Each structure stands twice: as C-alpha cells, then as structure tokens.
C-alpha cells in the first residue's frame, strides 16, 4: 500500500523506538501533525523550538536513547540551532526533524524558507534534505543509525512539505549501508597491551574520565580497574557520575573549577589514562604545563580527538567500554607482576594529602551560600535525583558540591555552555523517567532564557523542581569582572527581575522563596515533596565566587583558592 511521507515518517519513528516527540507545529509540517494523532507517539508541545531540542537532548542524556524533535521551516528551524550545537559539542544522539518549503519553492526565498541544512552543516554529525519521498525511509534509518553509533551526535533531516504529502510504497530498510562510515569500536589489541605495560611501569597513575565513559556505559569497567589496580580517578564535567563521587579513590573534577587534588594529581601523575575525554581548554589549563610529566594513554572512539590538543603516547581508538574491558582482560593475566596497592601507596597518600589540605569549601556566614543550597539538596535527596544545570556559577557549584554517584544523573551543557539548557533538558529527563525526582539547578539569569517552558511542564504535570540560586547577577561573568576586570560590573547586574514566585504561580506552578538560611532545608523538602512543578527562588549571597579557579591561560596547579 502506498503511504504519504508524513505517515512513512511516523512509521519509521515508531520502528526506531521513539515514543516521545518534542515539537512545535507550523505551516510546513502540518501534514505531519495531521498524521500524528493516529500514531502511538506522544507529542510534547513546547513553547519555543530551542526547548524542543534541549528536551530531546535531556531525554537522550538521561536514557541513552536517541532524542527526537520536530519543528517547522524557517524560524522554527533556526530556533533549533543552539540546541543542535549544544548536543553536537557534547556528542548527544539526537534526530532533529525540520519542515521545509515545498521542493519547487526551495531556493526562491519562499515564505519561512531557510537553508537549514547549510546552516547546521558545521554543528551536526550529518544532515539531509529529503527531495524524494522514495528516499525518506532510507534517510531516516541512516539518520538514527548515525546519531547513535560511533561518536554519537545530532543529525538533522529537512522535510519539504510536498515530500510529506507525496505517496510511495513504504519499505522499512532492515540494514543501513554506508560504505563511507565505519566507526572503530574494537580497539587495537597491541595498543591495549602497551597501555597495560605502561600501567605496570607507572608509580603515579591516574584515570581521567570524560563523557565517553558515560556514553558507552563503561562505568563498571572503570570502577573495576581503578579499585583492582589502586588508581585514583578524576573526570571532566561531562564525566561526573561515571565514577562514584563518594569512593575513596575519587579526586573530583579537574579543570578551571576543578578540585585542588584533581588538578595537582594531573600535573604530578606519571601515567594518565584519559577515557572518552577530548582535552577541552577548560580542562587542560595552559597546554604547555598540562600533565608534563605523564605518559598519556588516550582512549576515544573519535580519532580526531586524539592528538588534537594534547600529545599522546599511547592512542587507543575504540569504544571506551570495549577498550577498558580489553585492558581489564589483559591486566587480569598480569596482576601478579606488580603489587599494585603497595606500589601506588605513596601516590595515594600524596593525593589524599592534597585532598585534606585543600578540600572544596566555602566560608559560612549568616547568609545563604549557594554551595550550601547544593549540599542541602544532596542531603535531602541522598543523591537520588537527576540534576540538570544551567550554565555559569550554578553549574560549577552543582558540579562541585553535589556528589554524583551514577552515570546519567547530571545533565549539563559542557562543551557549548548553553544558558537556558537546564530547564528544557529537565523536561526531557522527566519524560524518560516519570518517577524520578528531576531538579534544574538554575541561576536567575539562565532560567529566564527558557522560562516559558513552565507552561510545558505544568500542562504535562511534570513535577520538576527549579532551584534558582538567585544572586541578581550573571554571576560567572561578574566573577571574572571582579577578578580580572577591576570590578567593572558592566551589564551583569540583573536586579530588575520578575517575582519568580508570582511568575511560577501565574503559569500554574508552585512558587517558593527562601531568604532565611533557617528555612532552606524545610522549604526545599516541602517543594520536593509536592507533585507539582515548583520554582524555588533562593536568595543567595550575591558576590560569592566559585573556587578553586584556574585563571584562563594559567597552568592547572596555579589555582586561586578560597
């Protein structure tokens, strides 16, 4: 039987395992929306297309599935660009479906026409314009395959209106054939042997986990290796949760706002196993001083990550989990060659001394400290929550003071640093896990970038908790202005802000305000216990800074401390 493009699209989505679709209708996609009610796919109507992409992203990060969103042509499509770039920077599997003007009009500057394939070429893993309905099923199959395989990433499919209306025989392609795309999953055995050899020789080894560990579900292998071989562990922001934050071998995140122990360890280690990390400038500090005494073993599925920023002694291209499992297998046969615990004992004593010397801390006074808010939330939830963040100080304090113990419990825009990410991502995460507590740690600046999604959360009865660390500033920029620009607080003071409690109530959510430290815990408990969407406006110390801080261009161990 011949089906139209819209129907074929939805049949394909179902076969790819899609049950939630975040979207916003428009002229170019009406045919798809017309077909939608006849399919067992839940459509979540957002209030801005950027939020549809972040929600799909949040669902993908929390669940590991491919997130999907659907928007119309022109402005609908351009509004997705920030979300796509966010997902691309953090390698998140996603398929973005955009409407397009009918094929005969393409290139004519038609109403609501943009070349979205051209616009998103540098921020998608791949993208397609479907010009013939007979290509539709194959293209969608490829799009999902590309999004989730290899180094995952967003794939955009542009769907002209007439292609959605045109009919053809629907054939579901069982296989995906792409001769030019063959990601390397299985690492080279010889390189793995060399890695084990290096670990046998090391006196001060260190594991350094990135988002790739989370993505490839390699936490168990990492944990086994760290514990069996007595090797301490640090991570990037994206790697938080890949290794339990309460394990004695855990040193905390490294980088610009990393821990003292983590940053010291990187620059004093003699062997670093970097797993699924890409050595972003926020992580390495001044490159010439980064890990200068260490042999670097770099495991990554993307060959371009290797030797892009940092010299590598033993490159391993492959899936992180397969690579760590391979190292485990080889190491198991050679465990007896080294008394690992004894050999690393002085090193473990050293990193532990750094940890005691300069733990993550802050000065308590009569006001509410943002770090204290994060700690209180951790103690109330016992860490059993999915936490999303916005970007800036709220993000760093969450990374520092919430103890992440499991992968996929922190959803944060690491690479692109997108303000406005956290709340829509929380919506996506809540759809993936309806029974979990989902908390968006926000700042008063970031939350206003996608606050319109309160309507989406309320009308879908999502019990998301938005905790605003409200300091009336764009705090991270203000911190830079304070430290490096002679306190010239140009355009970072945001005292003119809405009454967040009333705003929440206007949308039909619950609003709470906390100004007294004595009420912090009790009010948070009340809000978290509520079955409704809740906004908690916490008035925190206005000019609190995030420490430690490695100034831009400084070496990792040149930290400003509290």
């Amino acid at each position, binding site marked *: 039987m011949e089906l139209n493009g819209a129907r074929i699209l939805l049949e394909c989505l179902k076969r790819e395992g899609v049950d939630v679709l975040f979207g916003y209708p428009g002229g170019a996609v009406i045919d798809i929306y017309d077909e939608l009610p006849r399919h067992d796919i839940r459509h979540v109507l957002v209030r801005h297309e950027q939020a549809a992409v972040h929600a799909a992203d949040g669902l993908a990060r929390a669940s590991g599935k491919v997130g999907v969103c659907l928007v119309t042509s022109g402005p609908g499509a351009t509004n997705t660009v920030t979300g796509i770039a966010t997902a691309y920077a953090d390698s998140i599997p996603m398929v973005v479906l955009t409407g397009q003007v009918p094929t005969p009009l393409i290139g004519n500057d038609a109403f609501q026409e943009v070349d979205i394939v051209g616009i998103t070429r540098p921020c998608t893993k791949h993208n397609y314009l479907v010009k013939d309905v007979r290509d539709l099923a194959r293209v969608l199959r490829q799009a999902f395959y590309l999004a989730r395989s290899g180094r995952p990433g967003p794939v955009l499919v542009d769907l002209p209106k007439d292609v959605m209306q045109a009919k053809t025989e629907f054939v579901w392609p069982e296989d995906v054939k792409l001769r030019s795309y063959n990601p390397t999953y299985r690492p080279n055995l010889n390189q793995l042997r060399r890695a084990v050899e290096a670990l046998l020789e090391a006196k001060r080894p260190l594991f350094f986990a990135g988002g790739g560990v989370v993505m490839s579900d390699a936490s168990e292998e990492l944990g086994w290796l760290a514990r069996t071989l007595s090797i301490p562990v640090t991570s990037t922001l994206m790697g938080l949760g890949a290794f339990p934050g309460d394990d004695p071998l855990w040193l905390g995140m490294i980088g610009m706002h990393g821990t003292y122990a983590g940053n010291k360890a990187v620059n004093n280690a003699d062997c670093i196993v970097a797993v699924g990390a890409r050595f972003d400038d926020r992580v390495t500090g001044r490159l010439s001083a980064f890990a200068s005494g260490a042999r670097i073993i770099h495991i990554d599925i993307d*060959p371009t990550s290797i030797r892009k920023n940092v010299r590598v002694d033993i490159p391993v291209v492959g899936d992180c989990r397969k690579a760590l499992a391979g190292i485990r297998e080889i190491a198991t046969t050679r465990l007896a060659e080294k008394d690992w615990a004894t050999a690393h004992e002085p090193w473990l004593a050293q990193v532990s001394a750094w940890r005691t010397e300069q733990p993550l801390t802050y000065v308590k006074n009569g006001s509410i400290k943002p770090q204290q808010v994060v700690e209180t939330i951790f103690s109330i939830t016992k860490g059993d929550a999915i936490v999303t963040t916005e970007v800036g100080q709220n993000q760093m304090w969450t990374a520092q003071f919430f103890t992440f113990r499991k992968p996929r419990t922190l959803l944060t825009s690491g690479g692109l640093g997108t303000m406005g990410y956290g709340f829509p991502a929380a919506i996506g995460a809540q759809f993936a896990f309806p029974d979990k507590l989902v908390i968006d740690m926000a700042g008063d600046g970031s939350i206003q970038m996608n606050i319109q999604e309160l309507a989406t959360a309320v009308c879908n009865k999502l019990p998301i908790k938005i905790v605003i660390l409200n300091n009336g500033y764009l705090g991270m920029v203000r911190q830079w202005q304070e430290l490096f620009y002679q306190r010239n607080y140009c355009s970072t003071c945001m005292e003119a802000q809405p009454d967040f409690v009333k705003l929440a109530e206007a949308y039909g959510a619950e609003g709470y305000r906390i100004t007294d430290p004595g009420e912090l815990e009790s009010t948070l408990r009340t809000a978290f216990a509520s079955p409704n969407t809740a906004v908690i406006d916490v008035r925190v110390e206005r000019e609190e800074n995030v420490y430690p801080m490695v100034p831009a261009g400084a070496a990792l161990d040149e930290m400003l401390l509290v």
Partner: protein
Amino acid sequence: MRHVLSVLVENEPGVLSRVAGLFSGRGFNIESLNVAPTLEEGVSLMTITTSGEEQIIEQIVKQLRKLVTVIKVVDFIDVSAVEREMMIVKVQADDARRAEVLRIADIFRCKVVDVSLNDLTLEATGDHGKVQAILSLLARFGIKEIARTGTVAMRRSMQPESV
C-alpha cells in the same frame, strides 16, 4: 610543508560545502581544490593542496575521514605519485619579445593556444614546481592574465625491482 590530499567522496549535493566548510571552520588552509567525477558513478575525486605542520595535517586528514560523505583520504606525501597541474597564461609579446617567449615556451613544452599582435597565450602542464618556474621566467615579459587548475595527482604503479 605542502601536502596533496586525494579525497574520494560520495557525489551528493553539499559535499563540496562540507569539505570547504571543514577547512574554513577549523582555520585550515586550502591552496587549491579540484573536483571531478571518477569512473564509478556517484563518486567524485577531490584533490586538495594544503599546507601546515604535521599535527595540523594529521587533523585535516582525520577530520576529512570523519565526514560521513568521505569514502577515502590519501596523503600523497606518504606514497609515490604523479602530480600535475595546468595553467593558461597570457604573456605580453610584441614583435621584439615574441621569439624569446616562444623559446621559453618550447623549453617547457608549452603549447601556444592563442596569439595576437601584442600577446601570446600559452598552455602549460607540469607538477607544481614546473608551473611555478614557468611563471617566474615569464614574469619579466609582463603577464596579463593567468588561469590555473588545482593540482591533480595519482599514485604511481608498482615498478619492477631493479636488477
């Protein structure tokens, strides 16, 4: 260091833009770029001349391979190859100079493809070095216009072992 890269691509709309965008977006340098179909339908060959330090070239090659529409990348620095580019050059050549220009053209086995009272148009082929040499020798006569192709290259066949 100058590198000639042979890049086999799926001949789809936008493939040139993907490759060009990769170079411009990452600040890589393109000296010349040549695209044409191959024997296989749907497959095109791009020959890209670029330059940079070893680590940059490594990134360029890896980034090209990462593009979904790129089938194969060969860096001719690693293999023995035949390399050619073609140039059409219009040189000032009045009666007094014509003989001298023709002599140079002859030495470099250029073809005369057009002639007028005041200029000669030559067609020259050769590797990058030869074309540069022709240009620099003709410069003193006054070059009015040039049009050059980018470099194209092909791996040499295996030679029998020398006795």
